[in-house]
């Protein structure tokens, strides 16, 4: 991504148009790794079920990390699992995003004080884009988290390093 920096000046017209197209394409077909950890995974399944359909936003669960763009960490991350999550994150091809769903993966949640086996927040292992609060967050909260992520992608730029 860095190479383009030197050649083009601040967002001229040619870049702006293709940029919007690429951003629009990336944000309207976020493929999710079909993988859940704990109670938040049940709410994630309820979100992709008929009542709060995830598919409306173009999000389909893909079984293998190779074909997915967004990984939703839904549930408590323990140390034994943190190593696997780090490897799973590395398997995903590059424009990848992370939604940390539920207070357990945000900061350790109800297990922050006495949880000797709980990792206090998944951002200690992988970079997180959007945090969805709640224990478990309601499906609407997860949908809002997804919209926040889509907003973030809409303003990404291949020229200027996003702040």
């Amino acid at each position, binding site marked *: 991504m860095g190479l383009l920096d030197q050649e083009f000046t601040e967002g001229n017209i040619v870049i702006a148009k293709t940029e919007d197209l*690429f951003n629009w*394409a*990336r944000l*309207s077909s976020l493929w999710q790794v079909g993988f859940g950890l704990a109670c938040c995974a049940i709410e994630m399944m309820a979100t992709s079920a008929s009542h709060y359909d995830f*598919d409306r936003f*173009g999000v389909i669960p893909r079984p293998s990390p190779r*074909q997915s763009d967004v990984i939703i960490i839904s549930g408590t991350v323990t140390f034994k699992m943190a190593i696997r999550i780090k490897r799973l994150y590395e398997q995903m*091809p*590059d424009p990848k995003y992370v939604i940390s769903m539920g207070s357990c993966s945000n900061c350790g949640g109800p297990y922050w004080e006495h949880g000797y086996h709980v990792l206090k927040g998944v951002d200690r292992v992988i970079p997180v884009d959007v945090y969805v609060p709640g224990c478990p967050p309601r499906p609407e909260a997860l949908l809002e988290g997804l919209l926040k992520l889509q907003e973030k992608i809409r303003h990404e730029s291949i020229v200027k390093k996003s702040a």
Partner: protein
Amino acid sequence: MMYDWLFSLTGNEILAMFIVSLLPLFAFILPFALIAVLAERKVSAHMQDRLGPMRVGYHGILQTVADIIKLLQKEDLVATATDKTLFNFAPLLVFMGSYAAFAAIPFSGFFIGSKIDLGIIFIVGVTGLVVAGILMAGWASNNKYSLLGAMRAAAQIISYEIPTLLIILTIVVLTGTLSLYDLSEIQTAYFWNWLIFGGPFFGLQKLLLIPLMILSCLIIYTSTLAEVNRTPFDIPEAESELVSGYHTEYSGMKFAMFFLAEYANMFAVSAIVAILFFGGYQSPFGYLGNSLGWSWLVPVEQFFWFTAKGLFFVFVQMWLRWTLPRFRVDQLMAFCWKYLIPFSFVILLIVGLITLM
């Protein structure tokens, strides 16, 4: 035909041949794949009480366009332990196999890729490439799940080719021709001349053939379903068992190639069933073009009828996918070797006797 018309237009053969061979790909398969992927998601959504893609374009129309552009931007991950050449070549081979089949399929009276006499045998032979591509993909991605998926795919496609061939043999015994163009021409004028209703024969022979033809249509439909790895035979890329089978390690455009090949294969297979039994591009009620006297309208109508039948069978495949559970590997093999193949032998025998009548 199209080739002669283009030749008279452009003057040199190579250009005409080039355009004719590229026409099915750009004019038909790519748009079809875009629509089919969206249709599958919409059909499955509405079958499951939900809406499917809605936010991308009006009612989700641009969803597949967005998917393809996104897949273009994806990093092309090639694991170090993979066998590079095979890994990169496998999706091409799978797509080549499924696209080559369209060369011999008559889209309408006016357009056919190449009017070869061995049309149907060519198609079955060329889809053999798909098996090689899948095995290559499974082996090269150095992943246990892909290997299992590829082994299953090879076993399944090879064993389901036998009932397909036997049913094709019965059609050949009945109609005496291998070329799909002639097959479509035989089943002209009204739907009771279609082979599913006993073909263009008369009296007792037609009556005897009808049950056999319906049964053989069912057999060829299920066995071609298995050849294309669609549920209930989608064990090579069974999500719940083998993560996603032979294309677990593929990402970005290579995965899109597999995806595209699967939908192209789906249409090729339903086109074959439509041609063999439902009269290819023949219209069931005669042509508007003839009655109105515009002769140029007839090929357009034929093209319309051909795609209508093909899309109907593609819809049935989608319908099956979202209702039926999946077979296990040995049940699938048993179903093929213990039921489909004996049945098709019996049908071949009886049809042979009937034609002697």
